[in-house]
């Protein structure tokens, strides 16, 4: 082993080392991040609270049933978050409503991920005319203000949980497409991809075996952060009355309902908002942790 290694050799050694243990390394870094761990704990608490809510509350009895003698009760032991204008327990509704936020967040991101990433990878890998077409279409969708686009889509396809997921998902496609393309383009230039080509691998083999796995890191980070964003956008649409139909206890919708009562019963707007914020915060913390863990440059 020569003492004075030339630069490429050194890189090759490092690269091999890194590839083998990349995920282990990411997990190791991730575990060390206090923020990410806080995020995970919050998320677990929120998720399990929502799951428990699923078992202890009955949709008809506890979530939508109105009791007029219980209207507008301030937070107390019996109703930790108070009751709303129909006498429904806000705590129960918030626990139950978590499912909407989570499902919209996750499904929307799956939609934007699968469409956006595929297009981005194809564009970044093949280049040329294909890339041009894909990126110009992306430009068009990216240049329409996303909230307005989402509103137009919900107007076009009617109001339901599915449409909400779709609208929020479509709006996120350009971002994924761009991230994926950029990521693929950096990977395409790497030596090992050239090596694979030189070794006679077919395009799709190179794509699946080398390019996709190696360009995933920024996309995964993007996924996490987009889930947070999607939850906010979705609850915003519900806030505007375009989201999950009543009486489903979607957080944004509850917030919107509380607006009319904001003067004397501000707790009605306080708690749903808090629920959104805490959830999004937890996901953002995890996203940040993942990004730091995956970005070798940020390590000291």
């Amino acid at each position: 082993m020569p003492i004075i290694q030339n630069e490429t050799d050194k890189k090759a050694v490092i690269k091999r080392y890194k590839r083998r243990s990349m995920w282990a390394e990411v997990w190791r870094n991730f575990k060390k991040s206090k923020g990410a761990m806080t995020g995970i704990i919050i998320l677990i608490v929120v998720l399990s609270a929502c799951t428990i809510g699923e078992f202890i509350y009955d949709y008809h009895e506890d979530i939508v049933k109105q009791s007029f003698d219980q209207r507008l009760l301030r937070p107390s032991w019996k109703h930790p978050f108070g009751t709303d204008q129909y006498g429904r327990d806000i705590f129960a509704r918030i626990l139950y409503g978590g499912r909407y936020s989570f499902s919209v967040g996750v499904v929307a991101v799956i939609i934007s991920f699968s469409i956006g990433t595929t297009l981005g990878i194809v564009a970044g890998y093949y280049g040329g005319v294909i890339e041009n077409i894909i990126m110009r279409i992306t430009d068009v969708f990216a240049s329409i203000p996303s909230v307005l686009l989402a509103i137009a889509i919900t107007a076009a396809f009617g109001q339901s949980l599915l449409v909400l997921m779709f609208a929020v998902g479509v709006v996120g496609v350009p971002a994924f497409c761009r991230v994926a393309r950029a990521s693929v383009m950096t990977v395409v230039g790497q030596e090992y991809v050239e090596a694979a080509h030189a070794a006679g691998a077919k395009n799709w083999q190179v794509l699946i075996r080398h390019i996709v796995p190696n360009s995933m890191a920024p996309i995964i980070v993007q996924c996490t952060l987009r889930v947070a964003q999607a939850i906010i956008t979705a609850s915003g649409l519900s806030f505007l009355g375009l989201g999950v139909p009543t009486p489903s206890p979607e957080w944004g919708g509850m917030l919107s309902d509380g607006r009319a009562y904001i003067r004397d019963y501000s707790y009605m707007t306080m708690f749903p908002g808090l629920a959104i914020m805490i959830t999004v915060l937890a996901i953002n913390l995890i996203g940040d942790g993942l990004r730091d863990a995956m970005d070798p440059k940020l390590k000291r």
Partner: protein
Amino acid sequence: MSKTKKNIVLLLLACLLMSVLSGCAPSSSEQSDVGPSEEPQETAYQKTIVIAPALDFVSTETQVTTSGTSKSVFLMVFNTLVEQDTEKGGLIPSLAESWELVSDDTWEFKLRRGVKFHDGTDFTAEDVKFTIERGKEQGASKAKLESIKRVEIVDDYTVHIIMSKPDVDILYKLTDPNCVILSKNAFETLSEEEAYKIGTGPYTYNRWEQGDYLSLLRFEDYWEGTPKTEEIVIRNIPEAASRLIALQTGEIDICISPPQIDLHYIAEDPNLTLLQIPGANCRYIGINSSKKPFNDIRVRQAIAHSINRKGFVEAVYEGNATVHNNVMHPGNLFYKEIEGYSYDKEKALALLAEAGYPNGFSATIYSSSGTVQKAVATVMQAQMAEIGIDLEVQSLETATFNATVAPGSDYDMCVNGWGGYVVGPDNALRNMFYTGGNNNNFGFSDEYVDKTLDEAVSISDIETRKKLYGELQEYITNQAVFLPIAIEMIDMGVKSDLEGFVPPQGSIQKFKNVYIPIE
């Protein structure tokens, strides 16, 4: 600021003293204008009055728009031929000084002389002819002017309106802001957009920042005398809570529809007065009787029996609405007090079982995305759950909603409102319940109803008509396609010293005489 205020207060105290001494308050408009020789004791008025309605002013097109706020503004910028006296009832002259039925199908209108348009031209019979003939072609005025065949000019200040069919309600229809008199000259010389801004009313358009505010300036040459208030601003504050805050902080003078839950703030504030006027709008649940299972009258009746109207009034309106049982508005001359459907769960369940749905069924109820509409749907959903009917609520924005529940469409139930009663009994019932009626989205078709409606409209004897309409009301209510919930209240918070306010005409506010004396 405070110094000028103090001065004004002093000045006003002096004025008040004077008026007390002279023994008459400056309430009649003729006396409020001061003679030239008088001392500077003239009553001062607040220069600008700011009004915040619930919905924004959207259009200047008088014959096209249906927006309530726009129509309220039209009553300030324009005049109609005849005006409704919303305080005492009946009709009062406006641009027409008098009118009479000169033959079976001809109305003669004597027009007011010396009336000027905002552009300085005189108002004449030409303008009336132009307005009505133009209006027969335009979206919103068309329905009101339908029964008019043509307009004949007798002389500059006399017109004959010739009817194509008998219409007992035509005078009321002419009071609608969609029928305000436009300037023929303006439409011939200006662009349509500009021409729509020329009226004969007490105020002129000044500045419109769409979505923000509309400013109106008083018209010095107004035929009833120069208005007391110099400027009226219609400010757009869509959020009810903010609207009320603006009233409390003094930034606006009239707040329409503050949040019902917060009405106590107005009642508690000595500077503010809460006005609650029974409105024209009847909130109801519409059922599509052409669709299974709603084609079975027992199902509809079961639903009708399971509605707890008191619950609605409390949860949706915070008590600020009146429970309603009839398909006709109580403000209508032909309204009959009927029993309607009682809240009776047992009976409802029995009816359902009889109809073959002992375990209920599921259906969808549509509402627009308005707060009240959504709330009504939500409460309805909860109440129907009691008898095993599983309702899904769909809140749609206006366009989608209107298209979804349009006559002939395939919806189950909807939350709707109907304020068409101000224009007379035939209009009210025919639109809703006549086979193929413009608003008959219940899929409702009943020979008896059609026959009786046709009969009633051609009879001129009031008592006979009353009897027929009374029977109709009872019959239609029984059919349970239109389930009335409540008559909505128009809530308004105003400055306590606001004067010149008259009750609205249906949902259309009449603000042209408002003023605030400064004391």
